[in-house]
C-alpha cells in the first residue's frame, strides 16, 4: 500500500499545506496553541504600530519601514508554524487517501431476509447487513464471514501479494473492505456502520479534525505556556526598567524580544510532530485508534510475544534423523517419509522436506494400497500399515517405547532422546513392527536477527515474554536461545491475562499482539493491544491498534515509533529553549546600545547595528521553524544505547547544538541583512 520513500514534500501536499496555513490563522483555531497564539497577537500589535508609525512620528513608535519588516517576519513566523502543522496533516491525508481509494463505491450483493439477493451501493451497507461475495468481487465493507471460505487478495490494504484464506467460524473469519475475493463464495456480515471503520477513524485522526492532544503533549503545552508567560512578564516589565535607565525601547524591539524568547520553534512544530507520529504508524501499516496509543507504546515495559510466527518461523521442523546402527541412513529416512506421506501436519511435511534435502523421495503411488493410521490422542502415534504387512509407527517417545519390544535398543535410543530434549528439540520416534529404529529431531527454527531485536529491546528497558503452548523445558530452551527475558509455557488464554494483570500491578505497561477471539480480553487489558488484521472482529474491537500486515514482529516497530514521538518533542523543546541564549546576546545589547554604550561589550557576535541585530534574531527565529519541519516529520532517530547515553547524546546535539547554532545563524543573517540595510 504505502510507498515508504515518499519525499517529504510532494508538489500537491505542498500547495495544499500553503492554503491551509492561511486558513489556520483563524484565532479560534490558533488559541489551541498558546505559544503561537501570542505570536499572532504580537503580529497584530505590530500591524497597528506600523500603521500608527506611518501617521505620526512619536519616538516610541519607531520607523515605518522597519516596523513593516518586523511585522512581516512575525507574520511569517505564524505562517511557518501553521505550515508545519498543515504539511503534516497533508501528508497524513495523502497516506490516508491511498487507503481510501480502496474503498471506492462498489456494488454489494446484499442478501435480503427472504433469501433474495439485491445489488446496492457499498455506502448503504449498515451494521448487521449480510452480503454475498464470489470470486472476482471486491468486498464492499469490513465484515465477518458467517458462511463459507475463500481465498482473498489483501494486497490493496497490506501490500502483501500472496492471497490469504479466510473462513467462517475460525479465528481468521474477518474480511476488509476493498480487498478482493479470488476464489469460492462467502457470506459476510457487516460489522461497522458506514464511515466508522478503523480506517475511517484513522483518517480522521490524521486529518486533525478529531485529533486530541496526548497526555505528554498536554503537559508539554502547559510548560511551554508557562515559559511564554515568564517572557511576557520579562518583556512587559522591561519597559519601566528601561525608562528608569533612560534607555527607551521601541514597541517593535519589545515585541521582537518577546517573540524571540518564547519557545516558538517547538510551539510551531508541536502538533506536526504529533501528527507525524500517527503518520509513521500508518506508514508501518498500523492503524492506531488514538494518538495516545502511539505515545503509550513508547512507554511499554513488557512485551508479550507469541512464540510461533514471532520468535520462531512457523512450526517445528524436522532437522535430523538418528537411528540404530543396524539400519542404513537411507533406509531409515525412507521409512520416515513413508510414515509421513499421509501426515498433513507441519511436522509431517517437514520430515518429507528434510528427506528431500538428502535426496530421498518416495512416491505415494509406490507403496500401493496402504492403510494410513491417523494420530489419536489415546495411542499418540500415527503411521501406516503397508500392503506387505509391515506396520510403521511414528509418535511421541513414550508411546513408541511402550509399543516397541526391543528393550535393549531402547536404552541406546533413549540417550539420543534425552539429548534432543535437552537442546530444546522435540524427539519423534519411529518404529517398525514393534521394533524402535530411530528418532527424528524436531526443532523450532528461531527467526534470523530476532536475538538482535531482543537485545535492542533490552537496552530500551523492555522486558520480552514469550508465550507458547510448549512444555516448560522446551519453552525455557527456546527462550534462552532467542534471548527473551521470560516465558509462559503451556499457555492458555487466561494465562496471558493473568500475566498482564500481574505486570500491571507492578506498575508496568504491557503490550501484546493477538488475533483470536479468546485473545480479546487480554488485548483489552493490555496497555497497548495490537490486533492482527487477519484476526477476528472481537480481537480488533478490543485492541487499540490494528496491524494491517498481521506481522507479529510489528510490536517492536510500534514501540520505536512511540519513543521517537516523545524524543522528537523533547529534543525540539530543548533546542528551542537553548536558542534563547544567543537571541538574548543579539537583542539585549541592541536594545540599550544607544543609551548605555558600555553594554556593547555584550554584543559578542559583533552584529553590525542594533536594528540589524534585532532583525537577524527575528528572522532566525522564523526560518528555524521551516528548517526543522523535515526533522519534525521524520522524527529524531531512537537509539537503543541506554537511557544515560541517549540523554548525553541528545544533550550534546540538541542542547549544546541549540546554544551554538543560533549564534552562527544570527551572525550569518546579520552579514546579509547589514548589506541590505
Amino acid at each position, binding site marked *: 500500500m504505502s510507498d515508504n520513500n515518499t519525499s517529504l514534500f510532494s508538489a500537491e501536499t505542498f500547495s495544499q499545506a500553503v492554503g491551509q496555513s492561511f486558513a489556520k490563522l483563524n484565532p479560534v483555531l490558533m488559541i489551541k496553541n498558546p505559544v503561537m497564539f501570542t505570536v499572532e497577537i504580537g503580529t497584530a500589535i505590530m500591524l497597528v504600530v506600523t500603521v500608527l508609525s506611518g501617521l505620526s512620528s512619536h519616538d516610541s513608535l519607531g520607523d515605518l519601514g522597519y516596523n513593516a519588516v518586523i511585522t512581516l517576519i512575525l507574520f511569517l513566523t505564524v505562517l511557518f508554524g501553521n505550515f508545519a502543522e498543515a504539511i503534516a496533516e497533508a501528508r497524513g491525508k495523502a497516506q490516508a487517501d491511498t487507503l481510501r481509494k480502496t474503498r471506492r463505491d462498489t456494488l454489494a450483493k446484499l442478501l435480503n431476509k427472504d433469501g433474495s439477493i439485491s445489488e446496492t451501493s457499498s455506502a448503504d451497507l449498515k451494521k448487521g447487513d449480510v452480503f454475498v461475495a464470489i470470486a472476482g468481487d471486491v468486498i464492499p465493507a469490513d465484515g465477518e464471514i458467517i458462511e463459507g471460505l475463500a481465498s482473498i487478495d489483501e494486497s490493496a490494504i497490506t501490500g502483501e501479494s500472496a492471497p490469504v484464506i479466510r473462513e467462517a467460524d475460525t479465528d481468521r473469519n474477518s474480511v476488509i473492505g476493498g480487498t478482493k475475493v479470488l476464489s469460492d463464495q462467502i457470506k459476510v456480515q457487516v460489522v461497522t456502520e458506514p464511515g466508522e471503520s478503523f480506517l475511517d477513524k484513522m483518517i480522521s485522526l490524521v486529518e486533525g479534525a478529531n485529533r486530541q492532544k496526548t497526555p505528554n503533549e498536554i503537559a508539554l503545552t502547559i510548560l511551554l505556556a508557562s515559559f511564554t508567560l515568564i517572557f511576557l512578564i*520579562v518583556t512587559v516589565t522591561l519597559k519601566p526598567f528601561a525608562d528608569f*535607565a533612560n534607555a527607551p525601547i521601541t514597541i517593535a524591539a519589545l515585541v521582537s524580544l518577546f517573540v524571540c524568547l518564547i519557545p516558538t520553534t517547538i510551539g510551531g512544530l508541536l502538533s506536526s510532530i504529533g501528527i507525524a507520529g500517527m503518520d509513521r504508524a500508518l506508514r508501518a501499516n498500523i492503524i492506531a485508534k488514538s494518538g495516545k496509543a502511539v505515545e503509550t507504546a513508547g512507554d511499554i515495559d513488557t512485551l508479550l510475544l507469541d512464540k510461533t510466527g514471532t520468535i520462531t518461523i512457523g512450526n517445528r521442523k524436522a532437522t535430523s534423523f538418528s537411528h540404530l546402527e543396524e539400519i542404513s541412513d537411507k533406509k531409515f529416512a525412507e521409512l520416515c517419509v513413508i510414515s509421513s506421506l499421509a501426515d498433513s501436519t507441519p511436522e509431517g511435511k517437514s520430515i518429507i522436506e528434510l528427506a528431500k534435502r538428502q535426496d530421498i523421495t518416495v512416491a505415494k503411488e509406490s507403496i500401493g494400497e496402504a492403510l494410513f493410521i491417523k494420530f489419536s490422542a489415546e495411542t499418540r502415534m500415527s503411521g501406516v500399515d503397508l500392503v506387505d504387512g509391515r506396520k510403521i509407527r511414528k509418535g511421541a517417545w513414550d508411546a513408541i517405547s511402550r509399543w516397541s519390544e526391543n528393550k535393549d535398543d531402547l536404552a541406546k535410543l533413549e540417550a539420543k532422546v534425552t539429548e534432543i530434549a535437552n537442546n530444546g528439540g522435540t524427539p519423534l520416534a519411529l518404529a517398525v513392527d514393534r521394533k524402535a529404529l530411530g528418532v527424528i529431531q524436531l526443532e523450532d527454527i528461531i527467526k534470523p536477527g530476532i536475538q538482535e531485536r531482543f537485545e535492542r529491546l533490552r537496552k530500551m528497558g523492555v522486558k520480552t515474554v514469550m508465550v507458547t503452548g510448549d512444555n516448560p523445558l522446551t519453552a525455557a530452551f527456546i527462550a534462552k536461545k532467542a534471548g527473551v527475558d521470560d516465558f509462559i509455557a503451556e499457555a492458555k488464554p487466561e494465562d496471558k491475562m493473568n500475566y498482564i494483570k500481574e505486570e500491571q500491578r507492578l506498575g508496568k505497561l504491557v503490550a501484546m499482539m493477538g488475533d483470536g477471539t479468546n485473545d480479546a480480553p487480554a488485548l483489552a487489558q493490555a496497555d497497548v493491544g495490537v490486533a492482527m488484521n487477519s484476526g477476528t472482529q472481537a480481537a480488533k474491537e478490543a485492541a487499540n491498534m490494528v496491524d494491517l500486515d498481521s506481522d507479529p514482529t510489528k510490536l517492536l516497530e510500534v514501540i520505536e515509533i512511540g519513543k521517537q514521538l516523545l524524543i522528537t518533542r523533547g529534543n525540539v523543546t530543548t533546542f528551542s529553549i537553548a536558542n534563547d541564549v544567543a537571541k538574548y546576546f543579539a537583542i539585549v545589547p541592541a536594545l*540599550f546600545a544607544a543609551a548605555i554604550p558600555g*553594554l556593547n561589550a555584550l554584543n559578542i557576535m559583533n552584529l553590525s547595528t542594533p536594528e540589524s541585530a534585532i532583525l537577524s534574531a527575528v528572522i532566525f527565529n522564523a526560518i528555524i521553524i521551516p528548517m526543522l519541519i523535515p526533522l519534525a516529520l521524520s522524527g529524531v532517530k531512537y537509539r537503543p544505547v541506554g537511557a544515560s547515553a541517549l*540523554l548525553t547524546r541528545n544533550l550534546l546535539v540538541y542542547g549544546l547544538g541549540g546554544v551554538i547554532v543560533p549564534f552562527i545563524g544570527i551572525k550569518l543573517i546579520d552579514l546579509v541583512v547589514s548589506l541590505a540595510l
Partner: protein
Amino acid sequence: MNTEILGVFLIFLLSVGLAWPLGKYIVKVFRGEKTWTDFLSPLERLIFKISGIDPNQPMDWKQNMKTLLGINVLFFVFAFLALAFQGSHPFWNPVNIGNWEPTLAFNTAVSFATNTNLQHYSGESGASYFTQLLVFCWLQFVSAGTGIAACALLFQGLKNRTGSNLGNFYNLMVKSCTRILLPLAVVLAVILMVNGTTANFEGLAEVTTLEGEIVQVAGGPTAPMVAIKQLGTNGGGYFGPNSTHPFENPNYLTNIAENVAILLIPMALVFAFGFFLNRKKLALMFFGVMTVLFITFTAVSVSEEIKGNPAIAAMGIATDQSNMEGKEVRFGAAASSLWGVSTTATSNGSVNSMHDSHTPLSGGIFMLDMFINAVYGGVGVGFINFFLFVIVAVFIAGQMIGRTPDLLGKKIEAREVKIAAMVVILHPLLILVGTAMSSYGIVQDPSLGWLKNPGFHGFSEMLYENTSASANNGSGFEGLGDNTPFWNILTGVIMLLARYIPIIGPLAIVGSLSVKNPVPATAGSLQLDSPAFATVLISVIVIVAALAFFPAMVLGPLAEYYTF
C-alpha cells in the same frame, strides 16, 4: 591573600563535614527514632498536651497544609499586634521604645513569620527586649521549624509507595525546633559568647572612647539571637548592622562559626534526603549540582572583590588592591564574599559586609543566587525550591529519551507540570513586577526619594530589595530608603506570596505523586544520579534564572560593570 582563600575553603569544608552527620541525625528525628536528644521529649509532650494536639495523627498533604497555614497566620497576628503596640504594653522594655507604624509592623511581622527577616526597622534601637526575644527570636525558631517540617513532609511524600499520609506537621515542626534548631543554637551561642558576643539585659551602657567621647552602647541577649538567626537561615540581626557589628561577630573565629551555621542545616537537609529515601547517590548528585553553582559564584565574587575597585586603583590610591569598602578589616575581602554568597544562597540574609558596596559583578552574583534560591537554600524551603527545578528537569529529560517522565518511580504528568510551572513563574513575577512598580514610581515622581544612588546602582538597589523579599532572604542593598508605606506593603505582600505558594505547590505535587502507583525502573528509565541528568538539571536552573532575569541584570549590575 592565600590565607584568606584558605579560610574560604576551610569554612566550606567544615560546613560539608558537619552537615553529613547532621543529615543522618535529622533523618532520625523525622522518623522518630531514638536519639541522644530524647531527654527533651517531656518538653514536647507538654507542648502537645497544652495545645491538645495528637502528634501521631496521620495527615495527608491537604490537612498538613491547612495546619501549616493556620499556625502561620497565628504567628503573624501575634507578631503584628506585639509590634504595633510595643510601647503600649509594660513588658520588658527598659529603654521605652514606642509603638510601630502599622505598615512597618505589617512588613516586619510578615518578614519574621516568613523566615525572611527583611528589616525595615533599625535593629536594637527600634525593638524592645520583649520584641527581640519573644517576637523575633521566637519566630526565628518556629519559622525555621515550619520550613524543616515542610521539607520532611516532602521527603515522606516522595518515599511513599502508594499512600497519602505525609506525616504530622505539628509533630515535625515541634521536633524540628526542639531536636534540631535548639541544640545547635545552644552550641553556637556558647561558642559566640566565649568569643565575646554579648549576652546581657543591661540596656544602654555608657562608654568613654579613646578620643574621650561618651557613647551609648546597646547591650542585649545577642549571642542566642545570632545563633538562631544563622542556623534557621533567618538573618535578622540584633543590631542594625547585622553581623558586621562587633558584638554580633567579634572575630574571625566567630565569623567561621557563623558562616558554617548559615550553610549547615540547608546542606544537611540535602544529605537527609539521601538518607531518608535511601538514595545517597542521588542526594550527592543534588549536592554536587548545588555545589558547582555555589563554588562558581564564590569564585567570581572572591576574585572580583580581590581585584578591587578599578576606579580607586586608577587614582593610584590603593595599596591593598582588594575592595574593602563596606567590609570589616577583621574578616577581609574573601571571607566577606564567601559570606555574601552563603547568605544569599541559603536565603539567610545576614551580612558581614555591606552588599551594596561590593563590586557590581559580586553584587550581581548575590542577586543571581537569590534568583535561583535553591543553592542549598533556606532551611527546608531550599530543598523544596530545588525539587521544583528537579520536576521541570525530569520532565524535559524524560521526553528527550523517549519515556513518559517519572521521578523516583512516579509519573510526572500534566497536573504536576502545571503546579511546578506556576510556582516557577511566581518568583520572576514577584521580583520583576515589584521592581517595575518601584522603577515606574520613581520615574513618575522622583520626589519619592528612596534612592540614595542614581542610575544603574539605584536600579540594582530596587531589584535587590524585591529579590531579597521574594527569595525570603532579608538582606538589603542599603542605600535604599525602604521604611516607607510603599516598600513596607510591596515587600510584605511579596514575602507572603513567595513564602507560602512555593511550599503549597510542591507539597500538592508530592501529595499527588504519593498516591500514584509506582512505575518500575528499567534500562530505559531516566537515571537521576547520572552526570547527564545533572547537566540537564544545572541547565534548567541556570536557564530559568538567567533567561528570566537577564534583562534586569543587564540594566543593573552588568551596566554598572561595563560603565565602571
